[in-house]
């Protein structure tokens, strides 16, 4: 009996791995073709869409912050360097226990105002609002703690412009990023959200919104994450974008039509993955009501963000992300293989459920089955090793293509030495790192985390003087 079960499990995993490989082959190939086309367009038509910058749509940049006193000044200062004519910065201090509010008030000379907020979407009580009257208006909203989604809702209620961007308090935007994500709104009236490309800033020196130096990270954990980010942002997101099926715009950087966010009731308070939740809600709402819409991904709109440098922080982050994904998918299971929801229901949603969400369970179950099969004498070791090697080779090629695409599109973002090191780590990541990440993500199935703000150890972004002498 046990032998029969194990046999069929083996067959199942064999087929699943094959399908998994096919899916990644398709996404990688689609992304490559799309990015090649995108690159040509960018190269020959990379001029601004409008002659007069004043004609761009004004944007409110929302920065939700919780205990961000170390990085918040850098973040706001970097936002002041954006090449965009009309925008405001709204920092939402979600009941921080540190001096986030005071450092902002002191640094930017903010004054308390009695600005009324129209409660278009639900949020916890706003305690007070501070503002300055500079050309780029900075607004600080102090509110009772309610989580990141709640903070973003407060930002939506208080911001003035028809488009709002949300960025993480530890992120820095490249100076042209807002212009790039705003252009799809000019190109198509149906655009409701545009996501940017997130890159790791731990060993990059950014000055006035421009990368001035790229150093090779010393910590393997950073290199592994760099490869992962490239795979996600230059392969799967690009491929899903081609069918208007992106179910996530990273919370680190995205631009949204305010009216569309209000249509879906804003961010869902209490959820962990608020960034995915709002996009899934938008797909569900617009598809259900048959309203034409477009959710777009702009690979050249860069946002630099800090990645965890410790395994414990990485573990918590991955677990949170997976929990968030589970919540968003779980609350919209009615879209799963539902043709009424078009490509989202039939392709994107099943892709996320079958090849993103349940993968960690299957990976761990697969390992257990292999061990069992070995002891039951059901494992053809030669076949197993061969299959595994081919599969790993395939995964490595997928990673290498992502690296190549990055070099192809952003030749200045990496050096040949960094690329060589990333190639080596693309090979090494199959030996431990991937399994570690699967285990972290598996934790999401054990119990939901109540903390709505990820605990991330903050360090100040690197500046020229921090640079190690040898690099």
């Amino acid at each position, binding site marked *: 009996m046990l032998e029969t079960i194990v046999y069929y499990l083996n067959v199942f995993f064999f087929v699943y791995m094959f399908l998994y490989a096919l899916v990644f082959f398709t996404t990688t*190939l689609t992304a490559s073709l799309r990015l090649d086309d995108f690159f040509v367009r960018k190269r*020959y*038509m990379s001029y601004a869409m409008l002659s007069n910058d004043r004609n761009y749509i004004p944007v409110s940049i929302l920065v939700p912050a919780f205990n961000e006193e170390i990085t918040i000044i850098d973040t706001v200062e970097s936002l002041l360097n954006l090449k965009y004519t009309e925008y405001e910065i709204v920092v939402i201090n979600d009941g921080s226990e540190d001096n986030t509010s005071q450092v902002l008030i002191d640094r930017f000379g903010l004054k308390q105002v*009695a600005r009324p907020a129209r409660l278009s979407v639900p949020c916890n009580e706003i305690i007070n609002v501070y503002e300055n009257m500079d050309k780029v208006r900075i607004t600080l909203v102090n509110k009772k703690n309610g989580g990141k989604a709640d903070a973003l809702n407060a930002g939506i209620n208080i911001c003035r412009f028809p488009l709002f961007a949300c960025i993480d308090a530890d992120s820095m935007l490249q100076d042209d990023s807002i212009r790039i994500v705003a252009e799809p709104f000019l*190109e198509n*009236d149906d655009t409701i959200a545009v996501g940017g490309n997130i890159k790791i800033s731990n060993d990059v020196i950014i000055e006035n919104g421009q990368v001035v130096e790229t150093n090779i990270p010393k910590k393997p954990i950073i290199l592994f994450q760099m490869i992962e980010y490239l795979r996600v942002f230059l392969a799967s997101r690009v491929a899903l974008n081609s069918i208007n099926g992106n179910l996530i715009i990273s919370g680190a950087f995205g631009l949204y039509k305010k009216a569309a966010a209000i249509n879906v009731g804003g961010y869902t308070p209490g959820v962990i993955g608020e960034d995915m939740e709002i996009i899934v809600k938008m797909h569900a709402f617009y598809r259900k009501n048959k309203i034409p819409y477009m959710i777009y991904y702009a690979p050249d709109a860069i946002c630099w963000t800090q990645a965890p440098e410790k395994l414990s922080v990485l573990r918590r982050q991955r677990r949170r992300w997976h929990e968030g994904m589970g919540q968003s998918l779980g609350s919209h299971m009615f879209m799963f293989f539902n043709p009424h929801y078009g490509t989202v229901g039939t392709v994107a949603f099943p892709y996320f459920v079958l090849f993103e969400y349940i993968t960690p369970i299957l990976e761990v179950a697969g390992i257990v089955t292999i061990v069992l099969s070995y002891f039951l004498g059901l494992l053809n070791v030669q076949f197993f090793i061969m299959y595994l090697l081919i599969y790993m080779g*395939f995964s490595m090629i997928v990673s290498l*293509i992502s690296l190549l*695409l990055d*070099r192809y599109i952003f030749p200045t973002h990496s050096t040949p030495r960094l690329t060589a090191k990333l190639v080596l780590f693309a090979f090494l990541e199959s030996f431990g790192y991937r399994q570690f990440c699967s285990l972290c993500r598996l934790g999401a199935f054990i119990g939901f985390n109540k903390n709505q703000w990820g605990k991330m150890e903050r360090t100040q972004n690197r500046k020229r003087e921090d640079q190690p002498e040898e690099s």
Partner: protein
Amino acid sequence: MTVNLVYIVFIGLIAVLAIVSIYFISDMVARRREGKKVDALTQELRSVFARFLPDEGEPHQDPEKAGWVIRYKEKHPHYTPERKQPGQVDAFFRKQHSGADYDDDIRQLKKQVMTKAGLQAFNTCYSEYVLAHGYTEKARDFAGMVIDYRVLQKNKVVRDKYRTSYILYLLAEYRIYTPEVEEFALRSLNDKSLYVRGNALRVIKNTGDIPLMAYAFETINKSEHYYNDKVLIDFLDSFAGDLDSLDDELIKLFDSMQEELRVLLITHFTNRRNNNPVILDKMLECMEDEDMEVVIAATKYFGWMYDKRAHDLILQNLGNEQWEIRAQSARVAQRGYGSPQMIDRLECLLGDGNWFVRMNSAYSFINMVEDEARINAVLEGGDRYAREITMYVMFDRGKMDYDRYTQMMEKEAERSLA
């Protein structure tokens, strides 16, 4: 059998991905080589540019363009654009050219721009010149002498999908306007590609040709393709010719336009603060239009362009059933339209059912009323909404400090609880 099939499929997938990788690597190598070639050609071309367009120190003024506008004004309305004949341009540059090898240079340039790298190099030098000197008539004539529409059509500088758009972009940058180019640009306004349409607009606005702009606007009016409002505003705002004359022409087309384009034209006139009497009269008509957006746009216009004839219309619109019109009218009321009737009406609107109407009315009311007793009467009156919005606006306008404002709000809260 199945296992072997899976192996074969896997190997096939890996092979396809390997081919993709090889494509990207070879393209990067080719690009690097091409980049070097373009750099070398650019270096050569810089000296040729210097011979034809010597650096004259100060940014070059554009007397021809001013002359062009004058000529247009003289000949209006039966205007036909005057273009320099190739012979005139040639003679001009022959005179300017310091070297004896003028014919060789021109021949060489024409040959170079036929190639992909040559065109890129020419484009780089031209952009450098424009960056340093601005768009000059000389640069335009020079580009027109070397490059023509047919040369660009034949050049395979970019893949077919983007060629039309890129050609239009270059034509716009080089300011090459022949009847053939103008026809091409107008035709492209109905192209299905957004980028082609966008660059066609760029060509047309850079011509500085008013009848062409007007014709383009009529084409857009009839077109079923999407044109973003901001793009069209930009199209009008950055017109390279005389904007006043363009507005004169556009106002003639106003009545034949769809609502969206009428709103857009009003926005354009507002942005330009154009108070030409014909436009003013038309805007007064718009204040009574059936379309709400047109009325709102016209009201905004009178917020910037004071005209006493607008007073009664604003007062009338303060009683409009659409809250958007009431709110906009209340907002512009403070821009010089103060009168006892206006103040009375605004005071009534402090208790309007819509928050935006109340807020805009309060701003105008506080701005117009000098009698503190009248404001205090509102603050102590029986309408809670009127009291709250007046307090907020007084605080925002600096007529009440934060402590007093919060005190009053607390009192207001106690009052509502009681």
